């Protein structure tokens, strides 16, 4: 495998939720992504996967830990260097309705990054580049002067992808890019992302709650639960041989579009004991949810397959 493009080490992001309570949205996660690889990050709502993505891009300042891009710790960069670094790291957002400024035309949405980084010489060059990008994501360049609300969800998500590609990034965080789209459109967007990866050599962090789609697109998958990674493995291995009880529950809960499979399926259910990720100052409760995650660590059980295990002793 080629060298690591992204190295996340001990990343933490805590939020003060008032009353001295702390929400440990991202609680000490570490992983690396090789150049050209896709790492899937799955988990249910509130597990901190989106916060993790935003903290990696330094849209939120981390509480602790480091993120290295090509060996450079981006949290040590000056604002000017950080701005230049943003050309290499981009993001595709979940909600194709909220992620495009309703007052901008498509040209302005895609061209904004070019303006910020002074990459569009003349107006004509800018227009040409925007049309090129629209064509790349399979949209009609004639629609460049239209406003976002005139497009369907799938088309808007393509605009979001074109915006991310405008600055020729190396690494893109896809934050649930398909969960707001219709089934028939999801495959279009996923295929587009894969095609762009092949053509442009992109590296992805693919955040989602839909495990079947994550498995399809990712080389490796990390499962997050209450701010931590509980299992990380090659995607085939993870689905064939899940080890952590949470991963097993998650896998068994996915409905499969096949009545035969569904009729013979046994579900593993988790009881919700109400322990969220909020660490209370009052009773000092750990907030580890169902598993004693505060006293667990990731252990490599077989090559490349990491599972969170309780500490011995």
């Amino acid at each position, binding site marked *: 495998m080629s060298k690591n493009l992204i190295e996340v080490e001990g990343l933490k992001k805590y939020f003060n939720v008032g009353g001295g309570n702390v929400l440990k949205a991202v609680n000490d996660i570490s992983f690396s992504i090789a150049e050209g690889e896709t790492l899937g990050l799955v988990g249910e709502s509130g597990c901190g996967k989106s916060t993790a993505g*935003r903290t990696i*891009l330094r*849209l939120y300042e981390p509480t602790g830990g480091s993120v290295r891009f090509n060996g450079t710790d981006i949290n040590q960069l000056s604002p000017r260097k*950080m*701005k*230049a670094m*943003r*050309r290499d*790291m*981009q*993001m595709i*957002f*979940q*909600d194709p309705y*909220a*992620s*495009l*400024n*309703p*007052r901008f035309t498509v040209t302005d949405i895609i061209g*904004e*990054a070019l303006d*910020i*980084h002074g990459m569009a010489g003349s107006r004509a060059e800018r227009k040409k580049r925007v049309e090129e990008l629209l064509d790349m994501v*399979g*949209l*009609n360049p004639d*629609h460049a*002067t*239209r*406003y976002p*609300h*005139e*497009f369907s969800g799938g*088309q808007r998500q393509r605009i*979001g992808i074109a*915006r991310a590609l405008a*600055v020729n990034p190396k690494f893109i965080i896809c934050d649930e890019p398909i969960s707001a789209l219709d089934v028939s459109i999801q495959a279009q967007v996923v295929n587009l992302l894969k095609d762009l990866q092949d053509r442009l050599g992109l590296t992805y962090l693919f955040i989602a709650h839909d495990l079947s789609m994550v498995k399809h697109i990712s080389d490796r998958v990390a499962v997050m639960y209450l701010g931590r990674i509980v299992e990380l493995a090659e995607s085939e291995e993870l689905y064939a041989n899940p080890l952590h009880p949470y991963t097993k529950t998650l896998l068994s809960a996915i409905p499969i579009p096949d009545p035969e499979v569904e009729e013979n399926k046994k579900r593993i259910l988790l009881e919700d004991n109400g322990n969220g990720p909020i660490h209370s100052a009052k009773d000092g409760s750990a907030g580890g949810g169902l598993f004693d995650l505060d006293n667990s660590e990731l252990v490599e059980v077989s090559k490349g397959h990491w599972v969170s295990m309780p500490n011995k002793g």
Partner: protein
Amino acid sequence: MEANQSSGISTPADLKPDDFRKIGTDEKQAEIIQRESISSWRDAWQRLCTNKMAITALIVLLFIVIAAIVGPYIAKWVFNYNYYTNDLLNTNQRPSAEHWFGTDDLGRDMFVRTWMGARISLIVGLAAAMIDLFIGVIYGGVMGYFGGRVDSIMNKFSEILYAIPYLLVTILLLVVMEPSLPTIIIALTITGWINMSWIVRGEIMQLKNREFVLASRSMGAGSGRLLFRHLLPNAVGPIIVTVTLSVPNAIFAEAFLSFLGLGVQAPVASLGSMINDALTGWLYYPWRMLFPAIVISLTMLAFNIFGDGLRDALDPKLKK
């Protein structure tokens, strides 16, 4: 053509084998957008046009503004009156062909004075609203955008200011300073901008967590770009509505102050001071109170209805 649901496929008589020839799907064809392109501003304008009340209000407002501009000139050209020309032989006259709105106790033409008064009232209202807009947007924008400690300190300050009864502040100010047009405008804006700043603050706070703002940040956009290209343009609807609704408030406040004798001083007249002057003999000369009262009521009503119409037209929640 509706397909029938009977069992077995319907076969129109004229089907030819050629009809069943395969055609390729053209991907681009499937992506063509059919509806005509429309910007959100034009969309709002079209929605406003369907609101008959709001359009009527707009027409009334335009009429009042035009009358306030040209009304006094008409009287000057036609009858050669000024708003301070007195004619002591013709005091307190009924409306007539010569004096359309009658005359007052000094024999001044009420038509000229009413429109001059309307002019003063509109100037006060618009100027106060513009200053509110200017201060409120900047103050509220800073509060909302930076949040945190900056926000809580600035917000506390505006709350304290708001807690002082505004009439008290205004009266004090007018007593200290010479009552004049600028003084009144300053007095009205000293607390008037707070409402606007709160509206802007709320809008910005809501907008700054939207994904398109995050997206712009992730591309390296700075504070200026975020505030002036992304946040404020998207808050412009509520801002316009607030301005529109604050104009009648200022007009009414000015009329009220004039009524108390704290407003513009003679010989300049505002609608409020005219009503005040007419109070002494209103049972005998009702027209002296009637015309200014009608104009001020119409102005305020029209501004309020138009503002409501704007709110409906600009409110994105009603958008499909």
